């Protein structure tokens, strides 16, 4: 029933933009230490331009069929649909873990060192399961509230750091050695293309400028965060993990200092919304929207992956590897949708042939 509910595509992209912004909120040591703001911005926009490429197959599918990949898979290739569903379930479990690990790590390091990372993950996953049962429509409505909250938090964070800006280092170009790694890091928002590939069928009023605007606004947010980290925190940022968190901590208005509680709330809600959308996509791939029978096993799997990372360093390294994420995203957002574009074309060609030969 929830599968048939259609909502504004603008709202979907507003939600996807907030999901993309979660990447920078959880930023830690992963970015290169080139020290140049200009190269950082080049990395941001190159990464986001590549992310847009990931949207193209799903955009074509949506424009031509007004359906999404998962609907096509179930209608045109019922046998392969099971394999596709399993792949997307595994992909979303990987990506959910990719986000949960830095979030739980930051939460436990910065706020409650005595609380286990797994407990935080368990609580967040439980909330996500509840949200996923309500469907993508409700989650995107929550996105509107989150957008307003994100605006307030960013205003406080950037406004409160304005007086601390120090340009004595100038606008250095930086060291190009880490540029490739940084571009790959900023390709991480391409996971939103996979969500779009799975939920596009539920959106109405889609235009191509929507993903472009969403990615441009994400790029603007990333650039602002990098600008303030570089010029308000300076070298101090290089010594600290989770630099965006430190940025929220130094924001001050007169005697009042630190908006880290706002930052924590924003990061929590962004991760919550992202993981909930992943669960919704998994439900959609199984053709059972909002079903606990699909969400609970997926949630348990995600939790087990989190648990595994606690005891196994190799597993943690694999589950937070930006190159693996990019490779899997490429398959999920480009390879499979392109295959289904061919399937759809073949089906149409056969249909037209049938119509022509019938008389």
């Amino acid at each position, binding site marked *: 029933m929830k599968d048939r509910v259609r909502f504004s595509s603008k709202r979907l992209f507003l939600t996807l933009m907030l999901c993309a912004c979660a990447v920078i909120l959880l930023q830690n040591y992963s970015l290169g230490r080139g020290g140049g703001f200009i190269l950082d911005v080049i990395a941001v926009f190159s990464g986001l331009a590549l992310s847009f490429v990931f949207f193209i197959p799903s955009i074509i599918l949506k424009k031509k069929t007004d359906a999404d990949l998962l609907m096509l898979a179930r209608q045109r290739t019922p046998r392969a649909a099971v394999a596709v569903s399993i792949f997307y379930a595994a992909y979303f479990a990987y990506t959910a873990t990719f986000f949960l690990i830095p979030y739980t790590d930051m939460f436990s*390091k910065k706020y409650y060192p005595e609380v286990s990372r797994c407990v935080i993950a368990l609580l967040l996953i439980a909330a996500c399961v509840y949200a996923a049962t309500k469907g993508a429509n409700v989650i995107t409505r929550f996105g509107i509230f989150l957008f307003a909250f994100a605006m307030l938090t960013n205003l406080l964070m950037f406004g409160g750091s304005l007086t601390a800006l120090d340009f004595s280092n100038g606008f250095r170009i930086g060291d190009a050695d880490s540029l490739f790694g940084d571009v790959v890091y900023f390709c991480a928002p391409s996971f939103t293309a996979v969500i779009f590939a799975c939920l596009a069928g539920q959106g109405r009023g889609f235009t191509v400028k929507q993903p472009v605007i969403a990615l441009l606004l994400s790029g603007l947010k990333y650039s602002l965060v990098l600008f303030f980290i570089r010029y308000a925190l*300076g070298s101090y940022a290089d*010594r*600290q993990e989770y630099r965006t968190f*430190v940025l929220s901590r130094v924001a*001050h208005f007169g005697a009042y*200092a*630190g908006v880290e509680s706002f930052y924590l709330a924003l990061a929590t809600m962004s991760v919550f919304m992202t993981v909930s959308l992943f669960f919704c996509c998994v439900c959609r791939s199984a053709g059972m929207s909002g079903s606990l029978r699909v969400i609970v096993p997926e949630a348990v799997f995600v939790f087990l992956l989190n648990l595994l990372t606690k005891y196994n360093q190799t597993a943690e390294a694999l589950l937070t590897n930006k190159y693996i994420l990019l490779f899997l995203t490429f398959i999920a957002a480009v390879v499979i949708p392109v295959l289904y574009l061919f399937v759809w074309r073949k089906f149409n060609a056969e249909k037209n042939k049938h119509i022509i030969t019938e008389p």
Partner: protein
Amino acid sequence: MPRKISILLLSLSLIFSSGCRNSRQIENAAIIENVSVTVEGGQIRYTFYRLSEGEKPWGVTVRAESFEKACKKAREMYIPNMSLAKLELLMINERLQSRIMKQDVEYISQNSFFSPIAYVTLCDGKTMRKLDAEERVQDVIEEQLILLKKNKPQVCIDYLSVFNHLERECEGFYVPLIRCDGEIRVTAKRIYADKTQKNEK
């Protein structure tokens, strides 16, 4: 059926959430709000002042070569639950500036629990003694520091800006210097990073 499940979940959550085995009462937690560094008989002394509402400040003094060692020693010997997350002010005797300022600010920059916008200042021996005797001294110093920053924006009053200037190893920068001649006065003192330290030695 759903009611039974919700009752069961509620009971379980009550069982698990009520356990306070590792709880720490806020009164018992040693929240440090100010640290002063002095020298006596050639030995460096770190005094950790706890957050308190009494008339006289409550401090623990340890002898150590650096802030890192002092924190470790204070935790081991006097205040096991010591919390430095609310540290607002680090006061260094002006004679110790070239010896310990860089290493201590460096240690603070590597630990995420310290607030990057806590104040760092140099001061004379009289101010240290006044700080030992009167509770309100820290508030007065903080007010004066804010005023100084307002009048002279180039003065580095917090860890963040002091650390960045020390890292830059530039020609020199200003830090606050507190003197006590009956009343507390804050002025700016120009200090130098590595180059001058070598000269001074």
